[in-house]
């Protein structure tokens, strides 16, 4: 089964992995707020482990604080909803009931950024990485494929403390394989290069890989760091790469303020200042649109990544 995870929707892998975790530890629980089918836990978890499945209703604040109460008794609740409702709607509940109280609650934001597509601007959350990153005690993850998702979930269940994770719901290109090991706080070196550092996370990593491969044909070699762990971010790998290349491009399925690009700039400005170009959504709300339209409008598709890398590499050569 492990070898064909990439043929499944990510949400199905989420549900199936929760089942594995529940079978390993009956304290693991699946909490939903009336989006369980969208999260992939209904019927996958609800049917197989009904005692560990709790649908709170359309009441995300209640879900997060109930999660904290369950965690105070040793349960390990995974609370899922669309990113907009799992992060910004319940920011104070996560801050106080979970992070301040340091409760072992896992929060899963589904359909991040442009992947909210047809639900449009109200549901298209570009700020969750930024706001969750700014919260003490919180770990922030954004896996890019099903193997990494599964590895992240196993890590989350074993780690004692609050974690926020983005969950892309649909099928994703295979990036890793069943032997993949997730390491908290570590970047994954996807491509080695000397002309420019490219830093990506989550949904944008397959696009970054395509950009890097196409640039290689132009004799621009890209040092591509994929960061499933947005907080803590791998400062060591980032600085080492920036020292090798002298310039950095970041790309994320988020506002360019405060997320991955922000984190990269914070580290580099203190430890090794180099030119940085942040790609993502330039401080705007989302809208009902196709991914291609949004990439073009906001400038963070493959062509934009390539151009930004060319620009940074050229700057270095001057």
């Amino acid at each position, binding site marked *: 089964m492990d070898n064909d995870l990439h043929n499944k929707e990510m949400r199905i892998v989420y549900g199936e992995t929760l089942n594995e975790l529940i079978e390993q530890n009956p304290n693991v629980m699946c909490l939903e707020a009336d989006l369980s089918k969208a999260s992939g836990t209904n019927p996958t978890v609800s049917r197989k482990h009904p*005692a560990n499945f*709790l649908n*709170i*209703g359309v*009441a995300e*604040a*209640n879900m*997060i*604080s*109930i*999660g*904290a*109460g*369950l*965690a*105070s*008794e*040793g*349960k390990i*609740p995974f609370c899922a909803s669309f990113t907009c409702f799992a992060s910004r709607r319940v920011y*104070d*509940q996560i*801050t*106080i*009931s979970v992070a*301040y*109280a*340091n409760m072992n609650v896992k929060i899963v934001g589904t359909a991040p950024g442009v992947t909210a597509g047809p639900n449009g601007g109200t549901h298209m959350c570009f700020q969750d990485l930024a706001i969750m990153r700014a919260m003490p005690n919180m770990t922030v993850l954004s896996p890019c494929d099903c193997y990494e998702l599964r590895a992240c979930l196993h890590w989350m269940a074993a780690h004692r403390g609050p974690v926020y994770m983005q969950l892309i719901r649909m099928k994703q290109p295979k990036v890793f394989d069943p032997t993949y090991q997730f390491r908290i706080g570590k970047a994954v070196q996807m491509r080695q290069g000397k002309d420019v550092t490219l830093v990506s996370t989550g949904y944008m990593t397959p696009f970054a890989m395509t950009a890097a491969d196409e640039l290689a044909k132009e004799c621009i070699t890209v040092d591509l760091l994929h960061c499933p762990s947005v907080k803590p971010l791998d400062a060591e790998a980032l600085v080492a790469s920036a020292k090798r290349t002298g310039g950095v491009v970041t790309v994320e399925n988020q506002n360019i303020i405060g997320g991955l690009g922000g984190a990269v700039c914070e580290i580099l400005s203190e430890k090794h200042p180099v030119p940085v170009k942040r790609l993502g959504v330039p401080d705007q709300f989302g809208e009902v649109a196709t991914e291609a339209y949004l990439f073009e409008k906001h400038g963070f598709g493959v062509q934009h990544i390539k151009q930004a890398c060319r620009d940074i590499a050229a700057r270095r050569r001057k």
Partner: protein
Amino acid sequence: MTEKFDREQFDQMAAEWRYIMTDMICRAGSGHLGGALSLVEIVMTLYYRVMRVDPKKPRWEDRDRLVLSKGHAAPVLYLALAYQGFFPMSWLKTLNADGTKLPSHADARYVPGVDMTTGSLGQGLSCAIGAAYAARMDGKKHRVFCIIGDGESNEGQNWEAAMFAGHHKLDNLVAITDYNKLQIDDFTDRLLSLEPLCDKWRAFGWEVFEMDGHDWDAIYNTINAAIAVQGKPKMIIAHTIKAKGCCVVENKPESHNIKVPDQAAYDKYMNALNIKATLPY
């Protein structure tokens, strides 16, 4: 649950608690006096006559839990825990001091015996529900108590929680509303009326009781009657007086968070208690 009820002794202890609590808050220079004074008899009854706890084992698995959702009333909880022996009395004088283990709002991270960290109003009842749900899942027999404020009941999350607990028939949960009729800015009836409060909770599937929150027998009997009801969560509407016992601010909005800038203010509040007691620190 450690002592037999002796009315004279309980009256004396309640007076001491009011005296010490007012001193703690005055010493800190400011604090939430009114909503802590209104809970003295209820919290004392819970810890001395109802709840099964063990000060030597604050995290004892089978203990009864108390979530003080109106976390700003923490001083009354801290007094109960200090008197029970969860931590030394000397801690009490450090309320809100730099580096203290006793912060203004109830904090389970630092204070042995505090079961849930609270302070952002409206979240504690949901947390208590999570604890009660987990206990039921695990077949545990302990009870979960939760105290919410009347002003706090303005928060919508309470009603999400009410709907959930009613639907899931969480009968190991007993909630108490400290209905002192005052919130920060005004009387609740003038600012945002909760009435008909009992009907609201009943409509959400809860068994509802009312009691005089300063009458020892009423409190004890009502809490026990609530515990005994099976098949639904229980809400006790406790009619209380904000800042009870401190005549200069009793039943006044300004009792919510008193400011004590100098000795004159300190004397004003302490003398208003009309209690002679000694401080245990």
